[in-house]
């Protein structure tokens, strides 16, 4: 039979507990229970030597279970194990069970012949039983559905924002009256209302809230996924719950303040753990809509200044030396996590722990700085990534094993590397893609700590170089130091990822999917030309000469273009082509104006308000649209209605999870059930149209019925205005579904214009997801099949309908020429590419371009098309 030892500060307490347990055991089969408690009968305290003696006395060879009260009891018992004969010590188990309940459970089990492990389990159950009992019994509980069906009523209104079913205010209030005892344990059920489930940001918020109550232990289970409970202090733990929108979480909190914490968590659950939080909206209005034209931090071309200021490449220019050149020659700067720790000298555990503390602190400061900079430059949404990194940095699931590793002899870098690799694996095993991506975040956090350990200051590049990354995320793209970044090469990743688009918009040459540089080391010379796709590692003198000449040509062409940026684009044979810019913010509009954009062919409203937690009001939208129009000096702006779904979630219009979101309810489709947000937006558009030149267009239209429905919504919105719908308001749709491209006439019969969205049209035509690196090569807008659909559209639209184009293809000067040759009358490109597109158009005749288009339509491959277009484009610019 196993023996039991009770360790307590108080001898009286321990002896009474033993009496209580003895009452419940058979006198003939009672285990030996020894007490090591108090320094004497009166003095509270624990004594490791006494504990070790008690264990030795209780040991009959079958093992000893030690039950403890708190604080020094634990330390003394641990120390006692060191005093014992190792052979005895290895059959001793220290129990984390509550003293009285655990002792009773263990004594009964031991008396019944249980072995050490079983008795230890039995002791732990003592707490579970009480937890469950009080959890169901608290007034906070409310109705607790046993299954999804029964609970559908109160739980299914997650969209309404009232996600928490318990505890209610009164319940929490009465629960907190019992507050203050150590063992109090309460249970509540929360529903995940965050649109994307408990992904990084809401999970971090959850963990932070729990972390603010250090004395409460909190365990969480996902009732809908099953599985065990996880420690709510651990971000990783929360992530492994794989909690999606609508899932029910059972939260068990134990300790003083448990009720308060549960109440707070319930309140947070109601806001989607911050994802649906209301106060963020108005604050952002002030920042976005109220910001001055172009903030200096934002970027490269600096709008008007760039057109008149020093030429790109000049020393002291705020733009990069390769701004807008799409090519670069320079030395590789790897930023894909390779930190050199060759010179790291590991010390003993104390030294390593201190080094870790310093490194973590440095990482913390860097991340805090990043949060600030990113929210200033990009918005709160992007900054949330670094908020999540901060939470991950302080996650016990990361730090505790690292510290344990160090204590057991690893160096700090070894321990960090080991643990981050393990964590990354855990994340990558999850089913939710949002969560899987957190694996990359773990690596990023780990690398930051390793970098700090290696003695590095903040990650900075000494000399201008070509950044090599696995993939380019938006935050990195926006934070690229333009004076130090000659270019970016991504090893994986497609050409239309958001980070790539952002970097290009800032004028940084970006080469994507270049597997050839996967193993190229830091400092290697590399030359690339993103326009032709040519990349040379370690170029010889001759090749370098070629690239230098190319860069010089493009730089002088660029200067020339910038000088003429504000002139219209008229072909040599007199055809005027409007070149507009795609904008996602008021700042973008300022930049676009500076680059000579003649209005905006695409205002991405879902991006403009993408970091709002709640829907902007009509007035807020009016204000933002007006600001954009004003930045563009009153030129026509084309407002695209909310384009949500696919890869563009909108916090205030959450979409159900679909197996294939790109083929699901995105764009206009997402508003068919509840058009209220859409109608509000259309009202804002109508109001702006009274004063400004405005177009409105609907995304993701497939059928005529959808056009009719959209027009009816527009009428509904116009009906809210005192006067009729403004005549000047032009109405159109996006052509981005192949079906729409094939029936442009019936779709456009009642419209003023259509605008071809080449990114989606390409992915749908070639059945190749735009963001996926594995099929990036297939998803080429230059594919003749896509061009034929554009041709169908241009030739098929109803009489008098303008055909515009607002995809990324318009930003590539060669392709822009081809598109004009196909008959597109208006292009909307990234702001930075407007001068080059205009310049290209001025050097050709429309006849040349029509000839190019005819040949391209007959070509066999995208590569052939690009080659044809390149020849027309470059032969003209060389002349």
């Amino acid at each position, binding site marked *: 039979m196993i023996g039991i030892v009770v360790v307590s500060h108080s001898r009286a307490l321990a002896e009474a507990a033993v009496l209580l347990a003895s009452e419940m055991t058979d006198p003939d089969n009672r285990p030996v229970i020894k007490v090591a408690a108090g320094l004497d009968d009166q003095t509270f305290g624990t004594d*490791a030597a006494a504990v070790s003696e008690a264990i030795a006395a209780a040991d009959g060879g079958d093992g000893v279970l030690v039950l403890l009260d708190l*604080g*020094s009891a634990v330390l003394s018992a641990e120390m006692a194990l060191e005093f014992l004969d190792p052979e005895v010590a290895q059959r001793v188990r220290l129990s984390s069970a509550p003293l009285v309940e655990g002792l009773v459970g263990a004594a009964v089990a031991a008396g019944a012949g249980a072995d050490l492990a079983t008795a230890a389990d039995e002791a732990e159950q003592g707490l579970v039983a009480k937890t469950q009992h009080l959890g169901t019994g608290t007034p906070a509980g409310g109705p607790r559905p046993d299954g999804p069906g029964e609970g559908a009523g109160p739980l299914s209104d997650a969209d309404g924002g009232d996600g928490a079913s318990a505890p209610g205010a009164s319940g929490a209030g009465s629960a907190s009256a019992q507050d203050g005892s150590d063992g109090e344990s309460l249970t509540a059920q929360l529903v995940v209302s965050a649109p994307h489930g408990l992904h990084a940001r809401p999970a971090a918020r959850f963990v932070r809230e729990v972390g603010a109550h250090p004395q409460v232990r909190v365990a969480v289970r996902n009732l809908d996924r099953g599985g065990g409970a996880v420690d709510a202090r651990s971000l990783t733990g929360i992530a492994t719950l794989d909690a999606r929108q609508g899932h029910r979480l059972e939260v068990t909190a134990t300790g003083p303040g448990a009720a308060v914490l549960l109440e707070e968590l319930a309140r947070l659950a109601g806001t989607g753990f911050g994802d649906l939080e209301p106060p963020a909206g108005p604050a952002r209005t002030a920042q976005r809509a109220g910001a001055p034209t172009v903030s200096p931090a934002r970027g490269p071309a600096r709008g008007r200044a760039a057109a008149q200021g020093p030429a790109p490449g000049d020393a002291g220019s705020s733009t990069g030396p390769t701004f807008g050149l799409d090519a670069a020659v320079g030395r590789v700067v790897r930023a894909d996590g390779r930190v050199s720790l060759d010179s790291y000298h590991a010390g003993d555990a104390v030294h390593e722990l*201190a080094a870790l503390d310093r490194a973590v602190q440095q990482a913390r400061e860097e991340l805090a700085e990043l949060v600030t900079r990113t929210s200033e430059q990009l918005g709160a949404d992007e900054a949330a990534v670094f908020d999540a990194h901060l939470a991950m940095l302080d996650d016990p699931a990361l730090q505790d094993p690292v510290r344990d590793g160090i204590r057991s002899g690893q160096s700090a870098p070894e321990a960090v590397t080991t643990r981050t690799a393990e964590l990354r694996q855990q994340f990558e095993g999850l089913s939710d893609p949002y969560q899987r991506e957190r694996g990359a975040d773990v690596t990023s956090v780990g690398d930051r700590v390793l970098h700090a350990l290696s003695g590095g200051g903040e990650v900075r590049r000494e000399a201008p170089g070509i950044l090599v990354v696995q993939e380019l995320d938006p935050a990195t793209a926006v934070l690229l130091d333009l004076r130090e970044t000659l270019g970016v090469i991504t090893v994986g990743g497609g050409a239309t990822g958001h980070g790539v688009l952002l970097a290009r918009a800032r004028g940084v040459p970006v080469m994507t999917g270049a597997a050839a540089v996967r193993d190229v080391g830091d400092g290697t010379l590399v030359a690339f030309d993103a326009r032709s796709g040519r990349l040379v590692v370690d170029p010889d003198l001759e090749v370098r000469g070629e690239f230098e000449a190319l860069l010089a040509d493009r730089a002088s062409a660029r200067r020339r273009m910038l000088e003429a940026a504000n002139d219209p684009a008229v072909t040599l044979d007199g055809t005027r082509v409007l070149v507009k810019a795609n904008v996602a913010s008021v700042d973008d509009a300022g930049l676009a104006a500076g680059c000579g954009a003649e209005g905006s062919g695409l205002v991405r409203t879902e991006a403009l308000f993408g970091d709002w937690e709640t829907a902007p009001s009509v007035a807020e939208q009016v204000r933002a649209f007006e600001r954009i129009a004003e930045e563009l000096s009153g030129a026509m702006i084309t407002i695209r209605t909310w384009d949500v779904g696919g890869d563009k979630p909108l916090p205030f219009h959450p979409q159900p999870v679909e197996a294939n979101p790109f083929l699901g309810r995105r764009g206009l489709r997402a508003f068919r059930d509840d058009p209220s947000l859409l109608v509000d937006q259309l009202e804002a558009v109508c109001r702006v149209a009274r004063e400004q030149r405005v177009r409105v267009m609907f995304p993701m239209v497939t059928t005529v019925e959808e056009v009719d429905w959209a027009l009816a919504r527009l009428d509904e919105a116009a009906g809210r205005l005192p006067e009729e719908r403004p005549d000047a308001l032009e109405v159109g749709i996006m052509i981005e579904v192949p079906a729409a491209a094939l029936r442009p006439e019936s779709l456009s019969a009642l419209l003023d214009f259509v605008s071809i969205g080449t990114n989606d049209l390409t992915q749908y035509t070639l059945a190749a997801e735009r963001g996926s690196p594995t099929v990036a090569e297939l998803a080429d807008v230059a594919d003749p099949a896509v061009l034929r659909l554009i041709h169908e559209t241009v030739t098929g639209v109803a009489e008098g309908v303008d055909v515009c184009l607002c995809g990324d293809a318009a930003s590539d000067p060669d392709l822009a020429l081809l598109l004009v040759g196909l008959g597109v009358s208006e292009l909307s490109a990234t702001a930075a590419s407007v001068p080059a597109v205009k310049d290209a158009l001025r050097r050709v005749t429309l006849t040349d371009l029509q000839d190019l288009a005819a040949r391209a339509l007959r070509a066999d491959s995208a590569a052939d098309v690009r080659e044809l277009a390149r020849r027309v484009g470059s032969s003209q610019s060389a002349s």
Partner: protein
Amino acid sequence: MATLQSFTDWIADYAGVVRDQADYLTDLDRAIGDADHGANMARGMGKVALLTEQEEFTAIDAYLKKVGMSLVSNVGGASGPLYGTFFLRMAGAFTGVEEAGVTEVAAGLRAGVEGILARGKAEVGDKTMYDAWAPALEAFDSAVGSGSDLAAALAAAAEAAAKGRDETEGLVARKGRASYLGERSRGHIDPGATSSTMLLESAARTLA
């Protein structure tokens, strides 16, 4: 050079300090703990101070081992196993050492602090005695690195410990009884960091 006599002087000095400051330590512990640190330490060190009267010691390590065991059994609170471990581990570093120079003391302190770390599983910033020990150890090592003698190194360690102790005032406790108070533990100096600083200050007075 620190001899056995230096170590017994150290312990005697510290016992005196703790006795004199018992009320102060208890007051600190009253604010954020269970108001027994001063009494516990005074009781434990009182017993320890009697060791040299009860027994004749001939080696530093044997003496320190006895000090550690005596603390383990007589302090009562968490400080018992923590200080006990400190002295027991320190003793291990002095095996065969009759005169401890700066190198030996460095090794002894390091072993002792590692013991505290292993026992308490605390980290810097948890508002524990480790917040005094960690900077102290670093200061000691860096003083040694720049050629200081034992006296100067101990003085530097004591000074760093005092700074660490003072900084616990702004921290929220994450370990021990004080952690039950959460935010309310802020604004009070940690008693353990205080008694640890006293131990180092005693060392600076007596060991070199």
